[in-house]
């Protein structure tokens, strides 16, 4: 290049310094940002690399459930690849008076044997402990223990002192230290106290009274030289890990042989005796149960029989009653008949008696008449008769005697008379009188006749009469006797009847009595049966109750015994199968998260700045091409003067390169220290223990960025220049024909065009006239807007993770982990479910799994969640579709897979996945996909789990939400549950949120850097574009001024276009931003974290507003520029 050309070159730069500086600034921003961001990760890695090396950070921290012996340590040291070993002690203790805050107390690192010191600590303040009761505390925001204060420890196990751990429980703080094990504020977790470690402290090893070493630190020979977090490191570490595990296995075997076998034997014995006892007790209970059952059966059969007997008796009673009634009625008829007969007989007898009485009276009279005729007087007769009704034969005889006597007297008298007669006769005969004339004779003869007749009569009576009478008497007597006998008979019958009546009455009474008795017996029987039944049932029930409670008690005792046995077995198992934990650096709190954070920045650096630079370069390119076009006349002049094409092109390439190079160098010079420092300092809020930043330029990205920038700008310079130089010099000297005006498409839409104001038409025409400017502005603004959108979007997406994950999806406040299936600890289950502080409680099981689908496999941070009750669980865990918000289809038909996991596996609902849990594989159908942001989850119903894995799920995790109405004291709940038997750990969602929030807050700085950079770019781009716009239209603007346009009108004339273009750009940028954000998010996202996918309205609004703000700012600045434009410009010839 000739001297003049060089001079011209510098003149050009001076003349176009605004443009030159614009290009420089844009390149500076682009390259500086890209290289700055990309240098952040190497710088941040460099810090820890050096820090870890300086402090000789362990590669492995071995913990054994039984501690380590000297032999163990020796064996480890002898393991191939091991550089240094350092056996040490640690213990978790409660800080006295700090309500369950846990401190992890280590021994101050001390070199072991020939080995180097591992994890060397840095004293920040004070000194290292020298006496047994001195302590140093880890540096943190936990500043309760300044140098000089006293720390008191308490055993985390109740009612146990610390004498088996430390020589004393009171220590004086003599210093503050940092340990490479704790680079962040994270202190890790523990299974005592509140469940999280609040502080770490260190005391002299001699202060520990623990017999065996509790931990051994190991470093690897080769690992020293490898960069931490690198794949090489991890591979080498894993290799060493395997060797250490081999050593561990050998040592464990040795331990097992020495110590365990006898203990196992005694446990086995205890188990056996327990089993026997249990069996026996169970047999007894069964027997008792059988007896009771038998008793019940017997009661039943007996009751049935008794009931039947009673029934029979009742029937009998009924029939007896009936019979009795029949008999009674029969008796009544019979009696009536007999009485009738008797009455008839009596009538007959009475008649007969009357007849007889009549006959008797008649006979008496007859007899009297008879006998009276015979001379028996009435008195005699009555005398003989007496008061008798009739005469007996003897009476007749007596009567006849009387007659006889009477006859005798008559006869005597006859004789006398005869004598008289004879005498008279005789006299008369003598006298011969007729006797008959002798009165006396006649009287006497009469008399005699009479008397003779009488005597004859008497005689007759005495011969026949008497007999007749006797006969008659006899007949009457017979009749009388007959009547009497009839009467007798009748009387007898009467008597008999009466007797019968009495007897019958008696019989009836007796029968009735009998029936009553039978009834009474029956009723008594029923009552008795009832009583027996009730009594026996009660008895049986009591027996059952007693048995049941006995059984329950027995079961309780058994479960207790079983638990004890399990515990003993577990304890022994933990000893018997002593577990060696091979903790790597990844297990150090903060170690992995540091990598995550750095990687996240790295990921940001891969996308965001690239796009950023893309925009920058694009804008530069357009600016440059414009510039070259403007220099047309100069180029023309130079060619005319005979300068070589090459030289001219070189001049413009030099212009482009110098702007680019200066911009790049300044950008790198500013960006590399500033951006990593800003970001690192933001992260040092988290990683306070780390030393200050070691800047590492990402040379690769720097070289690439500079090369790309230079290549693009110089290429543009070359091509535009070359294109110009193709014209003849004369053409170049002539002003470039102004771009012809053209009708635009809009004009064809008459009804729109005609409604537009004049200036609107002008603006529309102008916008579409300068297509290059249109695209340049729109793309530039769109790019910046997109960058701002993605920066804000990233910010809200990251913040959404927590808000959504723990605000909407997992809504639990506390998780309580049991040390075993709660099947064996029903008390705990009851306690948690009954805890009134919890609104909802769900029991579940969560295990790490490997999920496969086709050739895709996801194994890290992926969980299988089995709820005990879907209903409980879904009250706490909200399984829903991210877009529609609909509840996921969670049931027995298939599993619900979290969104990111589904995406990683490439599955959708209806697909099949293979889930491997503890080596058991099961093929499951995906029934739905659910929204989830952290980790991967496969949600499965307990029934499906049992079916798929052929085993019932054992639940050991409680998720609880706190009641909103009651203040929730986390520390209290935490310590209370950790004190509860069988609780392994308690964790609070607030803790997760806090640690994530802390992490996010650092990332927010990164986002802030992004936003500021994007904003700066937006500003510069807009400034540059407006600048070009004005430079190109100076003539037009000055003409407007000459025409009498006010400054405001002139600005408005230009701004209308600017504003419209900016609006187009913003609109395009919002669309582009969505895409860019999507791209950035998927790139930045870690495997098992899904950032929020919602782009909030505020992201758009804010981005648009910010761009608008910059546009306005640029417009304000440009307004001043416009004001300064000289109207004389309009008079100049067209260049």
């Amino acid at each position, binding site marked *: 290049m000739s001297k003049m050309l060089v001079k011209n070159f510098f003149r050009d730069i001076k003349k176009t310094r605004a443009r030159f500086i614009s290009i420089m600034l844009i390149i500076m921003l682009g390259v500086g940002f890209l290289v700055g961001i990309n240098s952040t990760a190497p710088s941040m890695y460099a810090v820890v690399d050096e820090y870890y090396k300086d402090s000789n950070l362990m590669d492995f921290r071995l913990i054994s459930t039984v501690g380590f012996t000297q032999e163990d340590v020796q064996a480890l040291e002898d393991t191939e690849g091991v550089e240094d070993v350092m056996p040490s002690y640690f213990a978790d203790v409660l800080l006295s008076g700090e309500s369950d805050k846990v401190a992890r107390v280590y021994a101050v690192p001390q070199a072991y044997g020939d080995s180097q010191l591992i994890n060397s600590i840095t004293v920040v303040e004070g000194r290292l402990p020298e006496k047994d009761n001195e302590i140093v505390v880890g540096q943190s925001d936990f500043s309760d223990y300044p140098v000089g204060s006293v720390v008191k420890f308490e055993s985390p196990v109740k009612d146990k002192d610390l004498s088996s751990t430390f020589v004393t429980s009171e220590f004086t703080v003599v210093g503050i230290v940092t340990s490479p094990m704790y680079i962040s504020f994270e202190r890790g977790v523990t299974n005592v106290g509140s469940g999280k470690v609040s502080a770490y402290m260190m005391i002299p090893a001699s202060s520990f009274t623990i017999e065996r070493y509790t931990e051994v630190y190991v470093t690897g020979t080769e690992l020293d030289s490898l960069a931490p977090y690198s794949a090489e490191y991890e591979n080498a570490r894993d290799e060493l890990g395997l060797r250490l595990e081999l050593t561990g296995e050998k040592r464990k075997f040795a331990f097992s042989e020495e110590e365990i076998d006898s203990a196992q034997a005694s446990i086995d014995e205890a188990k056996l005796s327990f089993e026997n006892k249990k069996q026996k007790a169970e047999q007894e209970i069964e027997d008792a149960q059988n007896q009771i059952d038998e008793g019940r059966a017997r009661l039943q059969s007996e009751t049935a029989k008794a009931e039947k007997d009673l029934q029979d008796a009742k029937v009998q009673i009924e029939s007896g009653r009936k019979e009795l009634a029949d008999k009674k009625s029969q008796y009544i008829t019979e009696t009536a008949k007999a009485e009738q007969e008797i009455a008839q007989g009596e009538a007959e007898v009475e008649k007969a008696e009357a007849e007889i009485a009549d006959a008797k009276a008649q006979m008496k009279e007859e007899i009297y008449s008879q006998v009276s005729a015979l001379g028996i007087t009435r008195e005699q007769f009555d005398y003989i008769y007496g008061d008798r009704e009739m005469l007996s034969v003897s009476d007749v005889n007596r009567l006849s005697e009387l007659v006889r006597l009477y006859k005798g007297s008559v006869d005597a008298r006859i004789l006398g008379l005869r004598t008289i007669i004879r005498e008279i006769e005789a006299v008369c005969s003598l006298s011969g009188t007729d006797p008959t004339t002798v009165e006396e004779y006649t009287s006497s003869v009469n008399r005699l006749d009479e008397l003779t007749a009488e005597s004859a009569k008497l005689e007759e009576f005495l011969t026949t009469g008497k007999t007749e009478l006797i006969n008659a008497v006899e007949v009457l007597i017979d009749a009388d006797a007959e009547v009497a006998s009839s009467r007798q008979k009748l009387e007898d019958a009467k008597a008999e009847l009466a007797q019968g009546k009495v007897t019958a009455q008696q019989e009836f009474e007796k029968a009735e009595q009998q029936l009553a008795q039978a009834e009474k017996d029956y009723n008594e029987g029923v009552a008795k049966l009832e009583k027996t039944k009730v009594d026996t049932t009660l008895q049986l029930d009591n027996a059952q109750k007693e048995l049941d409670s006995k059984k329950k008690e027995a079961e309780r005792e058994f479960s207790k015994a079983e638990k004890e046995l399990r515990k003993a077995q577990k304890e022994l198992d933990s000893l018997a199968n002593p577990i060696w934990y091979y903790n790597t650096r990844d297990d150090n709190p903060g170690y992995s998260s540091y990598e995550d954070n750095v990687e996240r920045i790295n990921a940001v650096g891969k996308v965001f700045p690239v796009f950023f630079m893309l925009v920058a370069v694009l804008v530069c390119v357009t600016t440059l091409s414009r510039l070259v076009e403007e220099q047309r006349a100069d180029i023309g002049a130079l060619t005319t003067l005979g300068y070589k094409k090459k030289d001219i092109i070189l001049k413009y390439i030099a212009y482009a390169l110098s702007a680019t190079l200066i911009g790049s160098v300044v950008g790198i010079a500013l960006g590399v220290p500033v951006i990593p420092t800003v970001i690192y300092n933001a992260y040092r809020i988290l990683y306070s223990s780390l030393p200050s930043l070691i800047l590492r330029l990402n040379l690769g990205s720097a070289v690439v960025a500079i090369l790309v920038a230079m290549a693009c700008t110089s290429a543009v310079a070359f091509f535009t220049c070359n294109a110009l130089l193709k014209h003849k010099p004369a053409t170049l000297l002539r002003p470039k*024909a*102004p*771009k*012809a*005006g*053209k009708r635009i498409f809009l004009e064809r839409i008459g009804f729109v065009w005609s409604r537009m104001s*004049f*200036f609107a*038409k*002008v603006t529309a*025409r*102008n916008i579409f*006239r300068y297509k290059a400017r249109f695209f340049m502005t729109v793309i530039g603004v769109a790019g910046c807007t997109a960058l701002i959108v993605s920066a804000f979007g990233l910010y809200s997406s990251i913040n959404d993770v927590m808000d959504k994950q723990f605000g909407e999806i997992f809504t639990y406040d506390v998780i309580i982990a049991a040390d075993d299936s709660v099947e064996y600890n029903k008390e705990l289950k009851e306690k948690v479910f009954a805890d009134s502080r919890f609104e909802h409680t769900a029991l579940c099981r969560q295990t790490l799994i490997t999920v496969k689908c086709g050739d895709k496999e996801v194994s890290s941070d992926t969980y299988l969640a089995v709820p005990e009750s879907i209903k409980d669980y879904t009250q706490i865990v909200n399984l829903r579709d991210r877009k529609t918000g609909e509840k996921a289809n969670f049931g027995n038909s298939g599993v619900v897979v979290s969104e990111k996991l589904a995406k990683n596996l490439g599955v959708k609902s209806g697909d099949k996945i293979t889930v491997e849990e503890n080596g058991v594989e099961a093929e499951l159908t995906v029934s739905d996909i659910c929204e989830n942001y952290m980790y991967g989850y496969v949600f499965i119903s307990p029934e499906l789990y049992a079916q798929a894995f052929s085993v019932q799920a054992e639940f050991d995790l409680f998720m609880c939400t706190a009641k909103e109405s009651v203040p929730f004291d986390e520390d209290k709940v935490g310590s209370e549950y950790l004190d509860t038997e069988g609780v392994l750990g308690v964790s609070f969602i607030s803790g997760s949120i806090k640690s994530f929030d802390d992490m996010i807050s650092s990332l927010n700085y990164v986002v802030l850097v992004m936003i500021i950079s994007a904003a700066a770019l937006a500003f510069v781009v807009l400034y540059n574009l407006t600048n070009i716009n004005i430079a190109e239209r100076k*003539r*037009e603007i000055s*003409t*407007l*001024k*000459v*025409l*009498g*346009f*006010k*400054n405001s*009108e002139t600005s408005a004339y230009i701004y209308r276009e600017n504003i419209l273009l900016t609006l187009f750009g913003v609109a395009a940028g919002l669309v582009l931003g969505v895409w860019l954000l999507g791209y950035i998010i998927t790139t930045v996202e870690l495997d098992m974290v899904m950032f929020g996918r919602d782009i909030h309205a505020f992201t758009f609004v804010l981005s648009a507003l910010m761009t608008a703000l910059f546009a306005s700012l640029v417009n304000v600045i440009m307004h001043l520029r416009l004001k300064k434009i000289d*109207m*004389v410009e*309009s*008079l100049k*010839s*067209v260049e």
Partner: protein
Amino acid sequence: MSLVEFRDVKKYYTMGEVTIKAVDGISFDIDEGSFTVVVGSSGAGKTTVLNILGGMDTCTEGQVLVGGRDVSSLSDKELVMFRRYDIGFVFQFYNLIQNLTAKENVELATQICRNPMDASEALKSVELEDRMDNFPSQLSGGEQQRVSIARALAKRPKLLLCDEPTGALDDNTGRTILKLLQRKCREDGITVVLITHNSAITPMADRVIRMGSGRIVSNTVNENPLSVDEIEW
């Protein structure tokens, strides 16, 4: 009655230590309705005079009265209004907005005026009614200049200032433009001030002001101005 009065107008530019006297104390009057030609070589200060007269620049010293109004004491804002309502400007390079049609270019001016001519009418008066919807690139130089004149006239200005209006045109076209300007002056009574380096056209003016090195060399009134057709150059 004079429309324009320059009273000892000076314009100095200070560039570092050097003071350039672009206009160094000039005075002249221009009658209303007259056609004035300011003629001088490059650097004579005629453009500065035009700028000051047109309200595009201010004088360092002196007084400029246009229609009795002291333009030199106006503020920037008042100058804008002055340009807007009182001045019509015809540029050497037309200064049409390429992106606007002839009519729209005229409208650009009429949009901001109080009592403008109709844009079509203005174009008609410069005999371009047929090319109203053409873009400048579709017009010849003379036509473009006529659009420029129409744009200036449409504002109904008190004063029509023309800066080398024929400078970029060939002779014949130049003549047409000059004729148009003369016609406007004569027929419509518009006061025209035209600056040029071409002395040949001075005979058409009512008044000729010759300038050199920022001063007035001569200020003559042409009693018998010729029509453009009569002028030879």
